[in-house]
């Protein structure tokens, strides 16, 4: 009896590992792929399927999920989560010799760095506006002064 209990216990422990093999921190993963890198925060795998097949797999798997956007880039398709899921992005490469998929865990460094970049970008926008205003202001004041000087001499 003890043997059976132990066997059932082991099976229960092992089973979730198999059941969860088609996802990484909640992000869908195609079954039977070649793992390239797998850490707590990143899962990179390779598959022989074409880019379009992988993309349609993800479109199906994420169908009905809110706050997920698909961005079509030149060298990859980028799937980004704007909600509070555990994963942040899935990048599907575009290539002839197999497709590489990279799943990245949601992380604070991404949020903080994008916020800092955007804050700096606001400065850049206003700095360029400042430059634009200074240059156009100088040109206009110069032309007004020249016209006034001409009037005075003429």
């Amino acid at each position, binding site marked *: 009896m003890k043997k059976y209990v132990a066997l059932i216990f082991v099976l229960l422990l092992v089973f979730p590992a198999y059941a969860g093999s088609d996802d990484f921190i909640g992000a869908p993963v195609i079954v039977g792929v070649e793992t390239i890198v797998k850490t707590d925060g990143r899962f990179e795998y390779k598959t022989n399927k074409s880019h379009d097949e992988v993309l349609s797999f993800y479109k199906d798997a994420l169908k009905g999920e809110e706050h997920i956007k698909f961005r079509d880039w030149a060298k990859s398709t980028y799937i980004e989560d704007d909600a509070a899921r555990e994963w942040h992005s899935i990048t599907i490469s575009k290539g002839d010799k197999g497709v590489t998929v990279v799943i990245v865990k949601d992380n604070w460094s991404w949020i903080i760095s994008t916020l800092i970049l955007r*804050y700096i970008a*606001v*400065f850049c*926008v*206003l700095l360029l506006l*400042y430059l634009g*205003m200074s240059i156009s202001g100088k040109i206009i*004041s110069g032309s007004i002064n020249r016209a006034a000087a001409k009037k005075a001499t003429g």
Partner: protein
Amino acid sequence: MTPYEILDMLRGTLSTTGIYNFQWNIVIMWAIGSLFMWLAISKKYEPLLLLPIGFGIFIVNFPLVPLMGVTHGHDQLLRVFYHYGLEWEVIPCVIFLGLGAMTDFGPLIANPKTLLIGAGAQLGVFVTFTGTVLVGFTLKEAASVSIIGGADGPTTIYLTQHLAPQLLGPNALAAYSYMAMVPLIQPPIMRLMTKKNERTIRMKQLRPVSKQEKMLFPLVGAAIIALLVPSVIPLVGMFMFGNLMKESGVVGRLTETAQGSLMNIVTIFLGLSVGATMHADKFLSWKPLFIFSLGIVDFMVCTTGGLLTVRIMNWFLKEKLNPLIGAAGVSAVPMAVRVAQVEGMKYDKTNHLMMHAMGPNLAGLIGSAAAAGMFIAMFD
């Protein structure tokens, strides 16, 4: 007729009344609506917005009122205002048109370096974003909540409608409430973040700005924003067009309409529609409460950002800026300008900062629009 039939008829009649469908949570919403109406009427806190918003909250929270639903396939009254005004993102842009027609960019053109203060004052927007994500808001919701600190009502509404329309009511309400409270929120931070001798800095009188410069500004401004942050050009473009109408001086009637009647009409629709989105079923949750508590922190950090930016700029400038004008970098036109003026005069009665603070104030308006554009670009 049998007594049963009479009872049935009575029940049928009763079921069409509000009393029959009464729920207790709507009483809380009546209280919230009444509070904002009281603030508007008795305390004169942003009455143009808080009165219609308060009434919108009040009237929509009665059972069965045909205001925000759909009848026979047609939107009901307030839903029509909401749909065409806010869902279509028309009203915030029209308000920006009116604001542009009312704005004199002279102080900003005369001292364009104050534009950087407007950027610095967006600090709270980005800090709050982090805090909001931390408590479990989605990224889009976080962006819409964080823009409250920019103290610019139409931009808050525009961004929220774009990214997280479910938070429109609380966000707009928090933005306008805290804008009204700028004279209470800002002075302690201004005193904390500046030294006494800095508060008495006298700034050089601003140079006169020619009409040509004023006319060119909206074109240069619109072009630069359109090139760098195209997603926000519906707002900024209308703002600059309103200003061009004013500065050109050739369309007096249009300018007058944009800054007067048109602005008043859309303000009525805006207030009622925003209030009408706050039904008890949607509003009474932890999120609006959190938005309100975080909104004040947002304002405080934005004020700090503006003040710090001036102090940093002063390290490099020969002619120093009075750091008190940094607080005007949060938009809140023109409340923040008045606060800078009043605080400045507390330390030197003859030091008038009003015109100097106008520059950062307008820069804050452009800065918060730019920040909103950054967020839209991030999610679109």
